[in-house]
């Protein structure tokens, strides 16, 4: 009985995606699957923070943006001219920021008894911003003026993009360390609001520091860990493979030109599918290994300690557990996973668009996934990601069906009907909201509630 729910719910989900493959197209089904898998990584990250430790992190968007930035920093070839023009200045500014941060930490540690410590830190921050502008300003304008239309930024390290996933995780963990130091002492609702606002700061930095990320000009044509469609379409072995797989279909057509036509069409569609399949395998591997490790962690002494801290902080403290340290650690761990997912998402999209990061889609939707699926349960988080993303994508056809059902009496050119049909994209928000409200009311622990583990 123990894993019964899990098996049934995941089978239904698989069946739904297969049905999409049959009725819509294989490509659509695979891209839904891929984004479900990416979302699953995100929701597992949030679940580690919220479900394991009870930390409410509304800064998901910020960590996803950091992960996305990492793909640019790792995989894009460096712009040599920009580096020689302004690289030195930027390195100096970077060293300056690190020096300021270290100085603040030093003051915080060494002068902890000093009465005006906080004001001193505040003064340092206020003074360092104009100074930083003074140091970096000339280099930034130099970098941004080099080939502004095509580059205008420093570029990256020209490494395989897979590395960027780990780099994104590392970067996110670093930022999470700073945020955690500042915010983790706050009460739950304060923490929610402040992480939400800090993620806003992160996104506006990624959006406006063009020398770093090209900002609103976007970075396109990122590398891939999977083959490109064009390369597949022109390689012999692939065409022969497609021919072999579709022998029965092709043999029915006798006209050679027509047959060639069909073959090239088949090659194009199947190249898309193969690329998505490659992604799906990589993502599946990531999700499975993450699931394995977090299940292990949940059952380990460390996991027990985390749950103890979550359920009764004071008791855990009394037992000699360092709550502050553990909170910071798990905040960094969860954020690292979210950053990893952010890099995966940008890799899959093949482009980095900083202006697309919005809290509704990248913070609250992920939270809906976790809450809907089941907090504290890894399988629940994954299921939530699948269900929510599936609804998110498939709500448009569903809404169209409902609208047509209710307005079938009305004329085709009826203003209300046309208006409703035009606003179909927004019905997904309605469904998300209603779904969340219903689940919170009737299954407050989510679709797959947390299992109490007894050792």
């Amino acid at each position, binding site marked *: 009985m123990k894993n019964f729910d899990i098996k049934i719910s995941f089978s239904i989900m698989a069946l739904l995606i297969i049905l999409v493959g049959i009725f819509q197209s294989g490509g659509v089904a695979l891209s839904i699957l891929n984004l479900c898998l990416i979302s699953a990584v995100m929701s597992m990250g949030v679940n580690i923070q919220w479900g394991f430790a009870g930390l*409410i992190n509304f800064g998901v968007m910020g960590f996803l943006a950091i992960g996305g930035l990492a793909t640019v920093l790792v995989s894009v070839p460096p712009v040599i001219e920009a580096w020689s023009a302004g690289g030195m200045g930027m390195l100096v500014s970077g060293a300056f920021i690190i020096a300021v941060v270290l100085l603040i930490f030093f003051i915080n540690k060494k002068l902890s008894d000093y009465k005006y410590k*906080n004001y001193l*830190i*505040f003064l340092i*921050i206020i003074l360092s*911003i*104009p100074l930083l*502008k003074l140091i970096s300003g000339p280099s930034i304008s130099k970098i941004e003026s080099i080939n502004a239309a095509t580059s205008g930024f420093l570029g990256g390290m020209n490494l395989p993009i897979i590395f960027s996933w780990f780099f994104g995780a590392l970067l996110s963990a670093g930022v999470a360390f700073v945020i955690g130091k*500042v*915010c983790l*002492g*706050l009460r*739950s*609702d*304060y923490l*929610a*609001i*402040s992480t*939400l*606002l*800090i993620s*806003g*700061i992160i996104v*506006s*930095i990624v*959006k*406006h520091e063009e020398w770093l990320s090209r900002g609103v000009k976007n970075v396109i044509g990122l590398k891939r860990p999977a083959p490109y469609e064009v390369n597949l379409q022109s390689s012999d072995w692939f065409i022969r493979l497609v021919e072999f797989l579709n022998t029965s279909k092709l043999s029915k057509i006798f006209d050679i030109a027509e047959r060639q036509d069909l073959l090239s069409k088949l090659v194009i569609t199947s190249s898309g599918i193969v690329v998505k399949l490659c992604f799906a395998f990589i993502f599946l591997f990531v999700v499975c290994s993450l699931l394995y490790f977090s299940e292990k962690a949940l059952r380990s002494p460390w996991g027990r300690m985390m749950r103890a801290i979550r359920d009764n902080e004071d008791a855990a403290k009394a037992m000699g557990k360092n709550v502050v340290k553990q909170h910071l650690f798990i905040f960094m761990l969860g954020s690292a996973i979210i950053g990893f997912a952010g890099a995966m998402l940008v890799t899959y999209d093949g482009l980095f668009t900083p202006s697309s990061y*919005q*809290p*509704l889609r990248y913070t*609250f939707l992920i*939270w*809906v996934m976790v*809450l809907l699926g089941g907090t504290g349960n890894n399988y629940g988080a994954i299921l939530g990601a699948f269900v929510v993303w599936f609804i998110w994508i498939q709500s448009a056809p569903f809404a169209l069906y409902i609208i047509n059902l209710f307005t079938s009496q009305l004329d085709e050119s009826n203003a209300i009907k046309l208006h*409703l049909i*035009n*606003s179909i994209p*927004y*019905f*997904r*928000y*309605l469904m*998300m*909201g*209603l779904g*969340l*409200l219903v689940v*919170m*009311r009737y299954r*407050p622990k989510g679709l797959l509630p947390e299992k109490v583990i007894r050792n």
Partner: protein
Amino acid sequence: MDFLNAIILISNFIIVPAITYGSQLALGAIGVTLIYGVLRFANFAYGDLMAFGTMIVILFTWYLQSKGITFGLLPTALLALPIGILFTIAISLFFDKTIFEYYREKKSNPVTFIVVSLGIMFVLNAVVRIIIGPNDINFMDGHKFIMKAREFKQLTGLNEGLAIKSTQVITLITTIITCSLLFYFLNKTKTGKSMRAYSDNEDLALLSGIDPKKIILLTWVIVSILATVAGTLYGLDKSFKPFTYFNNLLPIFAATIVGGIGNPLGAFYGGFLIAFSEIALTYAYKKFFKYLLPESLEPSTLIQFISTDYKFAISFAILVVVLIFRPNGIFKGKVI
């Protein structure tokens, strides 16, 4: 003369816009703070409640305009405002009855309330976009300017102009009226006092015979009025776009916490503090110093603390600073 020019420059680009924006934020922040004080949760649906109220106002403005009714020099939206408020009160009470009441009776933790308010946020977001669409809507009519920059220059003979839009004056007057009524209500009337007592200590208030249902109902009514007024004023001053309203939730939250969450007067000041710092820190003071300093000392750079791209980020940064130094806000929070 140069000194006067400098003063006018600052008034035109910092003081007047900041007072307007600050009033809008203050009205919004008082609403968030009241919900926090009485109902004890941070309402993430507040931005979308503002959007909903403004949407109703816009719809009725269009209706009135189609009937040929206008408000003379003033924007027609002010005539439609009471109807917008009624609808917003209705939807707030509806959500309270169907959703929040259940969790209140169960005495759920604040995080559950936040999550539920997220659900309502999604629903309201969808409702507004389905009804009125996601696009920019300008529903300001009536007289646009009280004083144009050119007229001011002709009038005074100064180099710098001072432009005052009628929406800015309307915002200020409405805010003064709303806030004085609200603070009179909270501090002088018996019901207001019982509301403060309830917020201060729920158990004691219940013991002294205060009816919690009445207090909660009243809170939703006041909050809906504030949300609709703030939303309509913002929409008149700039324009109505559902996404902007959602985004405005963030500086409103910042203002609320900076002023001490649960403290209406603090929220009021918090709104102005956020607005003034956002505008003053992103303004380029080059011209200002040109007037004041002798030619030899004239600045060559823009003298801008931080670029305008980071306008929103400033309010967030202020919040973070306040959270580090005074986690309870500048004014002590948690007391109405």
